[in-house]
């Protein structure tokens, strides 16, 4: 579904991604782990063209992207992204947040968009908050709205960048629940998270990034019980 080949990315002198290969199959759920600064967020942002890669190749749904030639907006619409800090639009109500992109980008009729929006809000359990402004929501509710907002564009793959790490611990569950459901429905997902329980239960594959390269890639059972790389072992010890 989404494929990165030999991705290199530097910020000035700092080489953050040093040739990453990542092949995510349709309906697969990949969890990315790694210590702070290892390049997890950068990789996700490259997949969404919020950062431009220096070399390598990104293919989405069989189509290799040439960022210089194509309409990036169109490509981004196919890849949903959920951020650590939600990034809801504060000047728009919950429903308006969700229907903004369908109306502006897809030129969907307002009525139709609203119906779609309400369906998605129902899906994340926030139907009753449609007319509320984001500032009135808890962190967990905000993140669920953000997920609904992304889904409104019917993306082919969803990227999650530490979606629960800005949440109070008792609010983490409700967001993970929505993500789990999404995975069960067959959404292709790449998730950066420190929630190891979620990784164990939901991931098809766990990938460990260290200093800009993939050093381990295995199904959850093997990843935790039989890590190959020394750094992976250390990491597992730290977070367990």
């Amino acid at each position, binding site marked *: 579904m989404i494929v990165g080949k030999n991705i290199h990315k530097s910020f000035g002198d700092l080489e953050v991604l040093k040739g990453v290969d990542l092949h995510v199959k349709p309906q697969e759920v990949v969890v990315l782990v790694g210590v702070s600064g290892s390049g997890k967020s950068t990789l996700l942002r490259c997949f*969404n063209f*919020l950062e431009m890669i220096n070399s390598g190749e990104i293919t989405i749904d069989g189509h290799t992207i040439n960022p210089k030639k194509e*309409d*990036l*907006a*169109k490509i*981004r*619409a*196919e*890849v*949903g*992204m959920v*951020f650590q*800090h939600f*990034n*809801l*639009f*504060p*000047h728009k109500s919950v429903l308006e947040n969700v229907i*903004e*992109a369908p109306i*502006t*980008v897809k030129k969907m009729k307002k009525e139709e968009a609203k119906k779609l929006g309400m369906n998605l809000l129902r899906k994340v359990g926030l139907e009753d908050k449609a007319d509320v*402004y984001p*500032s009135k929501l808890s962190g967990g509710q905000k993140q669920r709205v*953000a997920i609904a*907002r*992304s889904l*409104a*564009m019917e993306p082919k793959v969803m990227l999650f960048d530490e979606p629960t790490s800005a949440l109070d611990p008792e609010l983490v569950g409700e967001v993970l629940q929505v993500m789990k459901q999404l995975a069960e429905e067959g959404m292709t997902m790449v998730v950066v998270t420190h929630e190891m329980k979620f990784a164990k239960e939901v991931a098809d594959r766990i990938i460990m990034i260290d200093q800009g390269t993939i050093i381990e890639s295995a199904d959850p059972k093997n990843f935790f019980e039989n890590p190959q790389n020394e750094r992976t072992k250390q990491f597992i010890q730290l977070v367990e």
Partner: protein
Amino acid sequence: MPDLFVDVFDVFMRTYQGFLEATVVTLELTAIGVVLGTVIGLIFALMKISGSKILRGIANIYITVIRGTPLIVQIMFLYFGIVEIYTMSNFWAGAIALGVHNGAYIAEIFRGAIQGIDPGQREASLSLGMNRKQTMQRIVFPQALRRSIPPLGNQFIITLKDSSLVYIIGVAEIFSLANREAAQSYQAFESFLVVALYYLVLVMIFTFLLRLYENKLDVDKA
């Protein structure tokens, strides 16, 4: 002290009609200065965040020059300089000087507000498939505009006080009236006290209105 009070009251009673007229002039100058400054400021703020090096350079020069010279010099310069292109009345020369002056400060207000919007907002919008223009128009600008209103209100109050400087090109606003009153009546202390009170009351009224608005904003947000 009771004497002083009588004197001040005396000056006040003798001059209040003239002062009311002068207050209208002061407020007109202020309003034109701010409105014009907002238009100019918007243009230069857009230039400053634009992709073009030349536009950015022009905006930078404008802002540096205006912020690097005293308003009173700008007023004189405009009054005696712009003549070669177009002759205007002293009132308009003063109002335009205030507008040109404010333009640089308001450009910085807008730029600050736009750049103060969390980059996450832009990223979220882009990631949804909105293009740069849509992102600016629908996500960034509406938020930046709302944030600009309190500093714009503040700029209005600054301009109200700054408008006193156009007395130098002979516009009959409050301060010039006080000056003449002081010279004519030889009651400098009382005259300047009275004019200070006029400004103080005007500033306090607008500060109060601004606070009201800001509180309303805060309530909307919460």
